[in-house]
């Protein structure tokens, strides 16, 4: 493009090729792309390379992730993720909201794992308050967390299959997802972003008929998973696309801080549900599926197996749901029951104070991790004694896991890059927060 052919107005805005190659601080393209050994060989043969810019608007980046990909023919030689395109400043906004008003913000971070987000935040706040949630609340949390895990894996599976070209899977997965969202809607009134978890328990007890609906779902889901398997597992093209693709060794994944199904697919049986006992997962009988090779096939299989295990947990949760209150009886934190507002002046004042000011949390810091669908969701919370958090930080698994993408993709084909990214299953809302 020759600058002189443009209108004179553009003269000050058009960059010459030299300027384009060298940015404001004098970094060349090669330097931006990086300087690891593989990259250095790539730079030496720079004229062979072909840089394409995937995203922020690209059908397969699962959001607005941007990837600067250096290609040699169809082979990925280097890759650089650029993110922040949905950076929303949620952590900052939370500092301006009282604790219970911050929950809706927190759940909009990773918008497929809103229950995990909420569980991590409420857990951190409860740690700071030294608040014990009643068993019914804990079981309801587990029930919803596992429903959420299935929901998230379904969306991940459907969009991954769409990226691989098996379009119908998308519709089948979203059909089941809608069933789960009906359950969410039944218990909380919203399909997404339910704000169901509350500091001290859950916002409301489950309605009449919920347990029956959940049992129906539990009866339905294993058959549906079998259908997905029938469609994909014996498909030669799918097998070829998935097997032995995107392998990163287990040790490297641990170094990179990867958690969740990605890590388990590589053979590391690390699941916070089994080791951390903040939620009573120990009362449940379930297995942690792990892979052996750590390729995309293992990742896909681990997710499917996790869905089955989640169904098991949900069945147990709904069968053995303890009686009792669904929220802690701590009136300085928890809103008084609705019926008391009409009869008790103290309850009314309490309600008013809690809604307008929120509750105060004693000064302190806590880090509370939860195993979500993508790995470890951890909220780091600093309280300064006021009713608003002083600092909220979400350790989002997508953000950390994304660092493994480069190692998964370099040396593979562009098509594998798409498969890897789909199997990494990043949620950009969680990455950018």
């Amino acid at each position, binding site marked *: *493009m020759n600058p002189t052919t443009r209108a004179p107005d553009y003269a000050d805005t058009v960059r010459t090729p030299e300027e384009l190659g060298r940015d404001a601080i004098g970094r060349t393209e090669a330097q931006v792309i990086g300087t690891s050994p593989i990259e250095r060989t790539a730079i030496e043969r720079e004229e062979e390379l*072909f840089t*394409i*810019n995937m995203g922020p608007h*690209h*059908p*397969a980046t699962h959001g607005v992730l941007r990837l600067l990909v250096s290609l040699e023919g*169809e082979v990925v030689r280097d890759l650089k993720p650029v993110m922040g395109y949905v950076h929303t400043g949620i952590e900052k906004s939370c500092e301006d909201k009282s604790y219970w008003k911050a929950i809706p913000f927190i759940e909009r971070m990773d918008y497929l794992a809103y229950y995990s987000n909420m569980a991590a935040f409420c857990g951190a706040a409860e740690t700071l308050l030294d608040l014990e949630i009643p068993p019914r609340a804990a079981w309801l949390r587990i029930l919803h967390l596992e429903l959420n895990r299935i929901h998230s894996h379904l969306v991940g599976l459907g969009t991954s*299959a*769409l*990226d*691989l*070209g*098996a*379009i*119908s899977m*998308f*519709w*089948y997965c979203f*059909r089941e997802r809608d069933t789960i969202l009906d359950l969410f809607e039944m218990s909380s009134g919203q399909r997404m972003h339910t704000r169901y978890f509350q500091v001290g328990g859950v916002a409301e007890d489950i309605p009449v008929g919920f347990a029956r609906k959940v049992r129906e779902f539990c009866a339905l889901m294993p058959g549906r998973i079998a259908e997905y398997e029938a*469609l994909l597992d014996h*498909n030669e*093209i*799918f097998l*070829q*696309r998935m097997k032995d693709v995107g392998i990163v060794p287990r040790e490297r994944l641990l170094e990179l801080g990867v958690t969740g199904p990605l890590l388990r697919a590589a053979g590391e049986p690390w699941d916070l549900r089994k080791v951390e006992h903040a939620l009573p997962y120990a009362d449940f009988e379930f297995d942690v599926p792990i892979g052996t090779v750590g390729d995309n096939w293992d990742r896909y299989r681990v997710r499917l197996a996790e869905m089955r295990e989640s169904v098991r947990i949900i069945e147990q949760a709904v069968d053995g749901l303890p009686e009792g209150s669904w929220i802690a009886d701590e009136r300085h934190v928890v809103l008084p029951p609705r019926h008391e507002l009409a009869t008790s002046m103290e309850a009314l004042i309490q309600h008013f104070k809690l809604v307008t000011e929120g509750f105060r949390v004693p000064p302190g810091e806590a880090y509370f991790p939860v195993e979500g669908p993508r790995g470890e969701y951890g909220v780091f919370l600093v309280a300064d004694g006021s009713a608003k958090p002083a600092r909220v930080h979400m350790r989002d698994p997508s953000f950390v896991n994304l660092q493994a993408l480069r190692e998964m993709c370099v040396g593979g*084909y*562009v*098509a*594998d*890059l*798409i498969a890897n990214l789909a199997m990494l299953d990043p949620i950009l809302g969680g990455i950018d927060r």
Partner: protein
Amino acid sequence: MVAADVGFAEASWIMVVKSLVIFAVILGLVPMILLLERKLLGRFQARYGPNRVGPKGLLQPLADVVKLLSKEAYKPDAAVPILWAIAPALVILSATATLAIIPFGDVADGNVGLYGIDVSIGILYAFAFGSISFYGLLLGGWSSGSKYSFMGAMRSAAQLISYEISMGLALLGVIMMAGSLSLVDIANAQADTIWYVIPQFVGFLIFMVAGFAETNRPPFDLPEADAELVAGYNTEYGGMRFGSYFMAEYMEMVVVSGIAAAMFLGGWHGPGPDWLGPIWMLAKIMVLICLFIWVRATLPRLRYDQLMSLGWKVLLPLATLNVLVTAVLVVVT
């Protein structure tokens, strides 16, 4: 029924009328296939598909086409002007031209052949135009000045080379059995014996697989793999130029289905009176098109290298073997 001579020619006014009729039928067929695809895909995916525009959604393709026609015509700054403009036309032209050899019946009343032309080179004509249509994709992708288009163009070129040979070899068996290149002769030859799909089953499979690749249909839609290359070679195309590519894809589906129906499925021959011939042919074409759609709803996309190795390492040896075996059998019997 009189077997037509190769080189049989009607009066020129008949040819003009004939070509207009065929063109009208196919041009009417393509939007119907578009709608059929959307409806069928909907059924495969547990939903309805278009049903609000006109009765039963029948006017949906019309709305699409009129909308595409009324979109702004636009050329990116980086595009090469003339090539960019003629590339979609090239695709449409070659697809239309290939339609001419698809027979919908034999010579009726001794003076009108129910086909565009019956050329002596027969199927070679289709291959020649099939190759030209790839220039459309290649030029369109290359001249767009976009990297995604460029990659799509390169992929389509590689795909052409890998699949054209297998496709040709797959048909060689049929040609040897029928002893003619003309599609009319081949269809007639099947009336006496059995449909060639039975003796030439391997050839039929290879032809269909290569046909999927030729038409850029899933699972071989690499040139426009929308998950990887946004929209591949037609990333920069909008409006009716994009619509041309879109329609050409469906016309090529008709062509491939037509050739397969004529060469493997007995062409227009079927039970019932002779005048049912064209309807039989259309029915066979539609069945094959439903196969195309079914495959699209089911199969994931191949990777680039897998596509290559399937073409060169599986299809080509198989097709060669098929030709050899057929040749031996033809000579022996």
